[in-house]
């Protein structure tokens, strides 16, 4: 268990970024704006999982970050392809 004040501050700032990104997701007038918010939240989630892995001192949690990144990217590409011209 790592208790480092700098990492805690960084985690809180990342969580604030999450909330601001969700504001754009709630408000977004067009569905493309919601997709932008989805992309940003999924990239910020990688950093958040990295911080959680540092707090608990377990290397295996970084694998979750890798899977998370791959599937967030896949989701964004699928959604973009769909709303552009269908499958």
């Amino acid at each position, binding site marked *: 268990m790592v208790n480092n004040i700098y990492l805690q*501050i*960084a985690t809180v*700032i990342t969580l*604030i970024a999450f909330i601001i990104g969700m504001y754009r997701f709630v408000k977004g007038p*067009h569905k493309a704006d919601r997709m*932008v918010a989805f*992309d940003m939240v999924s990239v910020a989630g990688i950093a958040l999982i990295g*911080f959680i892995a540092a707090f608990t001192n377990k*290397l295996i949690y970084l694998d979750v970050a890798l899977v998370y990144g791959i599937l967030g990217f896949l989701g964004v590409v699928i959604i973009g392809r769909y709303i552009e011209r269908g499958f």
Partner: protein
Amino acid sequence: MNQEIMEIVGGIIAIIGSIFILLGAIGIVRMPDTFNRIQTGTKASTLGTILSLAGLFFFFPGWGGKLFILVLFVLITNPVSSHVLARAAYHIGVPLTKKTVVDQLKEREIISNPSSANLKKVKTNEIGD
């Protein structure tokens, strides 16, 4: 002693990275249209995530391999996804902001394919999509 210095340096790098992520989120809220939002969101969140993971490297030098793979992955896939988003947003006709000075892609498409403006109208559907 050495360990403490490394932790301070890594912590400061991680804080700078998270500040970049926060600025990307603020840019997403403040910018006036979709393309400018994609610009600020992509750039700031890419560098922010890379700096956060690089800060973790100073805490745990043994995690270097996996952190390197993650950084490389973020660096490769983030521009691709933002390009896909921008192209989809342009082709479904998301309005540009009023400050836009020039749109050369639109002039080009009208010249090469005059009926494309009609095709987009037909594709809109009735199931509330």
